[in-house]
Structures are given as C-alpha cells and as structure tokens.
C-alpha cells in the first residue's frame, strides 16, 4: 500500500510531463459585451421561486443583456425578501407580483422605496381545483353547491371526518377558511404548506384516481402536465371580498404586475424602460415556462428561443 503514496507524487510528475499541451487560459477570451446602450450598468433582478416568474425574468434578463448591454444580476429570493431589497438598494425590479397588498402598502406607500411599474399582461386566476378524472366522473362537482354532496369522498387522515380542502404555499393569501365557513361547506382546510406538496398531490390523485380538492392557480407550468379543472365558487363581484371574515365569493382575477425600486425608476436606466414596457400574455409566458420546466432548457436558452420567434414584441418593449 505504501506504493500508493508515491503514486500521488508520480501522478503529479506525469501530469507535468504530459500536460504541457492544450489551450491556454485567455486565448479564447470571449468577445466584449456587445450592445448599444453602455450606460445601462448593473441591473439587479429578483427571481422569485416559481417557473412563471422565472420565464419573465429569463426574457427580460436576456433582452437587457443582449440589446441594452446591461450587466444583469439575478437574485434568487422569496417575495418578502425581494421587496425588502428595494429599501436596501439590492433589488431593482420584481417582475411578477401576485397582489401582495400588504407589501405594496409597506414599501410603496409607507416607506416609499418602491413604485409600481404596470401590468405584465399575464392574468392570474386563483381558485379551487379538482383533477381532470373527477371532473369527468362527477361533472357537477365543478359547482360549489354540490361540494357537500361529495364531501365524504375527500375525507383523509388529516381532515378529521370532514372533506379535505388542501391549501398550498402560505405566500398566497387565501380566504379558504372563511369561505368554507361562510358557504357552510362540510370541509376542513388542511395546510399542505408548499406548492410542491400540492403538485405532488394532484399527480398522485390523477394517477391513482384519488379524490382531491385543492387551492391552485394559473398560470402554472403544471397545467402543461395536467389540465386541472376549476370549481366555480359564487361569482366575484367588486368588493365582495372587502371583509375577509365575511367573504363568500370567488377570488378576484389578478392582474399580475411589476414593481421596481424608486431609485431604479429615477435612475434613467434603459433597463427601467424595458421593465416598464415589458408586457406579454399567458400563452407567451407559458411557452417559456414550458421550455424551462418540461423541456429542461436553461432559462437563458429558453428566453433566446422565444425572443427569436417573437422579435416584434421585443422591439415594441425597446421602443424600436
């Protein structure tokens, strides 16, 4: 075994003898960043942990780098911390905001460190969903009035004898506990705690034909895999959700929007104009999200692919 010790030394010597070939560092220096607007500088982009957001971030970052010559720094952060970053100057933009009235109040109105930067064009839907097989087998289940009829189906070890309504990541505000109470549903809200748990639950439910009723939302890359069916709650009317305790109607449609830091908005950076002008559709976002989540492309490659196919839209954002 002692020989092994020498082997290490020998290997190094061998490397010294054989390795003196090969490309030297610096000989393939990448071309300097192209682009026209040199004044862009560093652009700090928060990336919140879901695929739809990542699609937005991928495309904006790609365009900012290639067309504006910005140095884009992506920061993987949860929403709350991204907003916090507006104040400390470490985050310039958030590209897909789902409501978050509390954060808007705190950072836009009270601390005045952030400003709204308009809609992304993507429409968010929140609601209660069932797996496709259930909608097929029990067509009337999509009407909330029939939910009590099927409550027994949804019983689990966690729901204490009632039907289970599975809730997800607590990042999203839900009224589900109030809804169940106010609509007099024989259901128990069970907190799954994460999006991962929700998706996995739907997968298993569809595969094993298990009943499942859960809080979910669109757009979501998972719809590429499984077309969940929404249960219709009493129709949303403006103001019907004013009192969280008395709410008895569906969730409002969300206009997903963008928020930037005050400093960034005032900086005159071309990246700010890009963020402000950035707007696309659910289909656009879904195409990029699909490339990332299903086809496993890196965000950058996925963005490149989409930008090539949709140059006109991109030029519109750039004011060309």
């Amino acid at each position, binding site marked *: 075994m002692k020989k092994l010790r020498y082997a290490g030394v020998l290997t190094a010597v061998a490397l010294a003898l054989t390795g003196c070939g090969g490309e030297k560092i610096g000989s393939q220096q990448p071309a300097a960043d192209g682009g026209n607007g040199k004044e862009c500088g560093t652009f700090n982009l928060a990336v919140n942990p879901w695929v739809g957001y990542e699609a937005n971030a991928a495309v904006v970052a790609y365009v900012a780098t290639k067309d504006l010559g910005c140095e884009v720094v992506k920061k993987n952060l*949860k929403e709350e911390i991204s907003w*916090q970053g507006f104040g400390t100057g470490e985050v310039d933009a958030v590209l897909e905001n789902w409501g978050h009235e509390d954060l808007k109040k705190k950072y836009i109105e009270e601390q005045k460190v952030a400003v709204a930067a308009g809609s992304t064009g993507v429409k968010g839907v929140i609601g209660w969903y069932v797996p496709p097989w259930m909608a097929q087998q029990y067509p009337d289940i999509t009407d909330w009035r029939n939910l009590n009829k099927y409550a027994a189906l949804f019983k689990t070890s966690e729901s204490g004898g009632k039907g289970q309504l599975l809730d997800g990541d607590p990042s999203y505000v839900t009224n589900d506990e109030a809804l169940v109470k106010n609509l007099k549903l024989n259901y128990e809200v069970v907190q799954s705690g994460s999006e991962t748990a929700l998706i996995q639950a739907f997968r298993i439910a569809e595969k*094993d034909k298990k009943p499942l009723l859960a809080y979910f939302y669109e757009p979501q890359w998972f719809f590429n895999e499984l077309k969940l069916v929404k249960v219709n709650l009493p129709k949303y009317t403006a103001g019907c959700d004013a009192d969280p305790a008395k709410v008895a109607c569906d969730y409002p449609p969300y206009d997903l929007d963008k928020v930037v830091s005050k400093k960034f908005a005032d900086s005159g950076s071309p990246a700010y104009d890009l963020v402000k002008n950035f707007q696309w559709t659910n289909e656009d976002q879904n195409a990029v999200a699909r490339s990332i989540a299903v086809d496993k492309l890196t965000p950058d490659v996925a963005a490149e692919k989409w930008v090539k196919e949709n140059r006109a839209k991109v030029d519109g954002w750039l004011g060309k």
Partner: protein
Amino acid sequence: MAAITSDVEVEVRRPRRGVVVGILLVAWVAVYFVLRGIDTLTLGSQETTTLHRWLTDHRDDLGQGNVVFDAIRMTVDQFVVLLQNLLAQPAYGRPVPVIGWLGVVAVAAYLAWAFGNWKVALLTAAGLGFVGLQGLWRESMDTLALTIAAVLLSLLVAIPLGIWAGLSNRAFRVATLVLDLMQTLPTFVYLAPLTLFFAIGPAAATIATLVYAAPPAVRLTAHAIRSVPAESVEAARSLGSTRSQTLTKVLLPMSRSTVVVGINQTIMAALSMVTVAALINAPGLGDTVLKALETLDVGVAFNGGLAIVVLAIVLDRVTTAAGDRPWRTASRRRRILLAAGAAGVLVAVWFSRTYVWAAEFPTSVNIGSRIAVTTSNLTNWVQDVFGGFTYGVRDAVTKGVLNPLEALLTGSPWWLVATVVVALAAVLGRWRGALPAAVCSLLLVATGVWHDSMVTLASTLLATVVVVAVGLVLGVWAGRNRRVDTWIRPVLDAGQTMPPFVYLVPFLALFGTSRFTAIAAAIVFAVPVTTKIVADGIKAVPVATVEAANSVGSSNWQVISKVQLPVARRAITLAVNQGLIYVLSMVVVGGLVGAQALGYDVYAGFTQSELYGKGLAAGLAIVLLGVLLDRVTQAAARRTQRFPRRGDKL
C-alpha cells in the same frame, strides 16, 4: 474535586415512579372526557394576537443601518468573496477562478494527506472528482467556499465561547440554554430579519449558517475542556502555571481530538443549511436543488443533494483523520514526502492557472444527468410498487396513535395539560423538572399559539420516540460490530446532510400531504445523529466490563441491556437530547408537507409579512417545546442515576 457525593444516601420509600406516572395519565384521560373542548386556546391559521401584531410592527426596529452590522457584513462579505474568487467564480479579470479544478483537487488532497493520512487524501481527490463529473463543479465550489467561511467564522466565535463554558460552570449553564435556542429556533424566523441587517448576499447566508452551525462546536469544546484529566491540570498548577499557561499549554492541546469532533459536527450542520441559505440568494448546490424542486424534478434535485453529501463525507473523514492523528511529529521520511508533495501541488496549481483543461472541469463526461434519470426512474418505481401499502401504514399510525394523542393534547383545557405536564415533570425530576415545565407551559400560553404547539407536540413526541428506538437499535448494532459501523456511516451522513427537500418529494408521493409525512422526514433527519452518539457510547464501554459480563455467561441481550446500555447512559441521554433537537429543527420542513401547526406558522410568517409576528411566536414556541422536553428528560435521567459513588476521592 468539589463534586462530593456522600455514600450516606437517605432513601425514602416512595411508590414506584412508573405507577405514579400511570395514574396521572389515566386521570388525565378521564378528566379529558369531561372537560374536552374547554379553554383549548384555538387560533385560526390567519388569526393573530396582540403580541403577534406587536412583533410584526417592530420587526424592523433592530439594526438596519447599524454601524456594527455594516462592519460585520463588509468583513464577512469580503471574506466569502475572496474564497469564491479562489475556488469558484471568475475573478480578477480572468474568465476562471484563481485556482482551477486541478489545483483545488491537488491542494485539498495534499491538505488531507498532511493533516490526516493518505487514505483520506485519496478519498478527497475521488470525492471532488465525483462532484466534477456530476457536472456540478462550480456549484460545489461555491458551496464549499460558503461552508468554509461559515465554519471558520463559527469556530472563531464557538471555540472561545466553548472554552469559557468549559472553565466556568455558570457560563456552561447559560451557554447550554442559548445553544438549545440557537439550534431549535427555526432559521426561517431569523432569515428575513438577517437579510435586513446584513443585506441580501453572502454575509446573511453565512451568518444564518453560523447561528445554526456554531452550537456543536461550543458544546464539544466545553465538553473537551471539562474532560481533561484533573491531574494534568493540577500538575500544571502545582508547577506554578498561570491561568493562560494552563489553558494554552495543557487544556487546549489535550482537548484537540474532541474539539475536532465539534468542528466535524459544525461542518455537517453548515452543509445541512445549504438549501435554506439558497432562499436568500446563497449560490451553489442549494440553488441547484431548489430550482429543480420548482418543477418537482427529483432526479436533478437528488444529483445536487448527492454532491452535498459527498462534500460532507469528504470533510467529515478528513477532519476525523486529522483529529485522530497521534501526537508524534512527522518522521523524517514523511517530511521529505510532504515537501515533494508540496512541490507537486504547486505544479498542479500552476497548470490550473495556465491551461484551460486544468482550470475548467471537463464536461465531456457527465454522469450527473445519468444519476438524475436513474433516480427519477427509481423513485417512480418505488412509488408504483409501494404506493398503496404506504397509505395504509400512514392511516393506521395516524388513526391509531397520532390522532388520539393529538386529541388529548389539543382537546384538553390548557391548564389541564399544563398541570399534568408539571406533575409528570415533578414525579420524574422533582423540582428540577417541575420548575422549567411550569415556566415553559406558561410561556407557551403567552406565545398565543398554544393549540398549534400541542399539535406539533403530538407529532414531535411520536417522532422522537421512533427516533430514539431506531437510533438505539442501529447504534447498539453499529457500536458492537465494526463492519456494520463502517457501512452504516455513509448512509447516516447522507441522512444528515441530504437536503430534506430532496426526499420530501418522493415522501409526498408515498404518504401524501400529511402529518405522517412530516414525521417520517423528521425521523430520517434525526436518526443519524442519535445512532452515531449511541454507537460511540457503546464503543466507549470498557472492554473489561463487557468481558466481565461475558465471563459470567451473559447472553448477548443481557450484555446489551444490563451492561452496555447502562454504562453508556450518558451517551444515551445525549442521544435523546440531540434526537429531540433534530426532530424539532425539522418542524418547519414538516410544515411544508402538511404537518400544519407551528411549522406552517413559522413558514407563513416567513412568506407573509403580516404574519411575521405569529411566525416568530411560533418559532419561540418550538424552542419552548424543546426546552420543556429536554429539561424533563434530563431531570428524569438524573434521578435514575443517583446511586452513591463510593470511589470518589476526597
């Protein structure tokens, strides 16, 4: 020396404790059926108390823009960036890090050889090569840089504190309490405030890791100092050593190997924080894992997790080998070889700075995607085969054990539960048990999350019981059989450092969204540490003692139950304590897979600014549960070991 126990133990006959405990429990159940549903202090998931709202409003009061915090941030940031530049990120105008992969492998293997032995040097080279082949070289180096920074800074804080706690009894008591707090207070509670004080970036991630990783080093340093033979210290004093001479020339050198165990544990803890740190933009493998999980890609997540495990095993074995090195200085021959090796390392580093092939890990061979695909297929297969069966197990355990226990805890009036807990603690540990039990119970009520605490308590109790049972069995097995120990260690290391998020996805498939899933995850995480401590305790039982038992014809079982377990009692008490702490540190992760209650509250507080105060209160409730259970078990353990020690020297 001062620990004198008299051999005149005044024994008062009292009814056996088991009977008293039994009567108490039966009485509790009986009263429960009468008073069920009264004063249960239930609070809805979106509801808050005045305390919670006050905490939310004052979250930002501390520290933002504080000069001290800024100074710390700058220093830590620069330190981490320096390490990253060395190992991971393109730096100083070059497209590659200062040292390329060949240089890193050579330096790491050389250090492993110099401080340990050639075996761990080979392991180091193989391990680093493996993560490179996984296609995760840069991510691994980022993680390594962050881990090294966090561990070094941890030690900078932990070793002085450990020495202090080792020298002073009062400091030791205070430190124990603070360390319990640091280890059980969920990271999610302080993650957001940390990013506020220390900004988003390496500093916050490093400091979050430090808070979680430093305690083992403090504990073990204190333990090491306390375990130095009294005679060596007396000998030094009798020759007129000053305090600092005694410390630097006697206590510290003689504590080395135990302190290294502490460093070891710190490294493991730091690596288990990698994924959490990724939530605040820490670069590296944690990010790989999190990104993969956004799309539930178990294969890619596992690949990333595996790299973390490999790094953990390498660091563990190298530090262990370094700690086990005998005192002797190197032989002449070894010194010559070391010098030659150093020259070889310099050559390798030069290569890695000059040639592209030695700087960037070759991508032609990538086993990462194969690992990912295989893992996905395997998990799918397991899910298909065991899916139905596992649901059955879940339902049986939940309905048979968990639900009744939870009903009893949550359905009883709070004052009834508190009374029973204090009474139990008093029976088990007299006032030493009763006093902390009473204080903790009242504080739990004050946190406003009593009901959720009881739900979490039920799951925690069940998980801890299983952890201790499994840990004892595995630990005794590994402690008695060297080969088992060798094979089981890497598995245990994996359980301890594989990010829970990775195995949660298959667990969700197997057990659905439920408290049971959370319990299973906690068990996977906590069994390794329990097993390791028990195994070490069993191994430390003097050979002569076991031989004596064998010589009178004891069966294997008798040797275990009558000799090894009782002699290893201290280790087992520690194993129970650590098992409990590890279970509690998984409460929040459990909240992500359906455990609800405190874990969910903490995570909700992290993600929803309006619930911050409630999350903090829930985090404190987890700590209180930990202190409560720990103090009661410790007090109980102390009672059972009160036999007179005649041999004590006066």
